[in-house]
């Protein structure tokens, strides 16, 4: 364990990248996922089809392939993110980081969409019909009547999706971001005798991070329980 402590700055920076990958793709995937869910339950047939196609294609593709697409195939086809170059202290958000965020967002959105759709399906049809009956347009029905109830029902699966995302960020470690997984590999390479304790230390930090996330989800669930 002393290896982790001796390299605490590097380890902290690495987990900083892990959290940034998670937070940015988490928020973006919620936005894109909600939009996709709206497409899938909306009244326009073409958009419903588009939403379904997106979910089918992305959800059936392994994460690694989605990420490699944006990291390696993308630049060859001219999809580059060279315009992103932000430096905040030791943290640097560059084109590689952006490609990983885009990949994680695209992938996670499909799951967010489906979690949300499960929530929407849990809202009795009468609710939407009643909202339509008093003259609300589709946007209004969703925003004021259906989604507030749907989100409550969708919270547990949504938490699972976001927890999966937090752990999925490690894939970026093999594709160009020095986040927790890449840092761990560096430390195990330098400290062969400490290999096992390093694995345990990094796994423990992940357990703690996920535990914080599920605690947060739990709190929200309790707070929103009264329907």
């Amino acid at each position, binding site marked *: 364990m002393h290896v982790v402590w001796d390299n605490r700055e590097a380890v902290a920076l690495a987990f900083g990248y892990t959290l940034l990958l998670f937070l940015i793709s988490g928020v973006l995937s919620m936005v894109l996922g909600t939009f996709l869910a709206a497409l899938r339950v909306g009244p326009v047939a073409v958009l419903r089809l588009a939403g379904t196609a997106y979910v089918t294609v992305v959800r059936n593709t392994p994460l690694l392939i989605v990420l490699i697409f944006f990291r390696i195939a993308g630049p060859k086809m001219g999809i580059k993110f060279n315009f992103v170059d932000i430096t905040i202290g030791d943290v640097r958000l560059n084109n590689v980081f952006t490609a990983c965020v885009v990949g994680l967002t695209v992938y996670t959105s499909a799951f967010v969409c489906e979690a949300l759709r499960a929530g929407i399906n849990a809202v009795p049809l009468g609710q939407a019909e009643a909202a339509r009956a008093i003259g609300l347009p589709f946007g209004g029905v969703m925003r004021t009547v259906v989604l507030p109830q749907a989100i409550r029902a969708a919270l547990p699966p949504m938490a699972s999706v976001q927890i999966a995302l937090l752990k999925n960020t490690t894939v970026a470690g093999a594709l160009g971001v020095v986040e927790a997984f890449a840092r761990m590999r560096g430390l195990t390479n330098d400290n*062969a005798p400490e290999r096992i304790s390093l694995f345990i230390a990094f796994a423990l930090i992940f357990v703690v991070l996920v535990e914080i996330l599920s605690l947060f989800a739990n709190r929200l669930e309790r707070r929103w329980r009264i329907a």
Partner: protein
Amino acid sequence: MRHTRIKAAIAVLGLSLSLAACGDAGEDNESAPDVEVKENAADDFEDGTAMKALAEAGEITIGVKYDQPGLGFKDAASDVPEGFDVEIAKLLVADLGIDPNSDSVTWEETISDNREPYLESGRVDLVLASYSITEERRQVVGQTGPYMITGQQVLVAADSDITGIEELEGEEVCSVTGSTSLENVEAAGAIGVPAETYSQCAEDVLNGTVPAMSTDGTILLGLAAQNDGELKVVGEEFSEERIGVGYSLESPEMCEWINEVLTESFESGAWEAAFEATLGGDDVETPEPPALDECA
């Protein structure tokens, strides 16, 4: 020194072209020197040593890299990897009385991360996989040599103005996840971009995602040669890697034997021949063999 490097690059390039011209990638490279297999090798070793056991079994498993042109590289079509590490391994194998070109030798791929675990668990008998000798590693596995000394340089696109690691402070530089090279890049003030393999890094340099990649000069020369004229190696060496042979700590007697074989190859010219066939070429000056570490 730098001049030699450029010449080396040209030579390696020429070598790889001549190999490519052979057509069938499955053929063994013709330039690889023949290694003489020792007869009745088992009689030369004392009872109870790991060498005796291996010589009697007539089989050995060697850990090598598959993705480093010039050192340890295996393309999809060939059965046996090629490169300087492999040639040195063949000398050791032949000294045990095993034919290095036969099926009795298993060339197991060892990536940087699993070299120690493989040696500790006995999955491989020896590791010759651009294996830098370090104090930390010597705590868990045996390492002797070095049979080669190399240093880290920078590989950039052919039209780049970068002339060395000094100019890459605060810039992205690619290297393999968890390698010493990546740490050295970060220590030099650049932003490390980890990748799974060196060829993935080269790809990133080629498509402009990162301005440069960095690792041992010998590996970079091989990559530059593979990507004909699109990449170039620049700068002075900014680290020293002592490449050695890894063995299990359970058989410390291997150290003396490995050193003996290496010393013999230094004297007989087999080491030189191996270098010339893999990393060298017509215009490349073959370096002096390095001084070996004493066995404990």
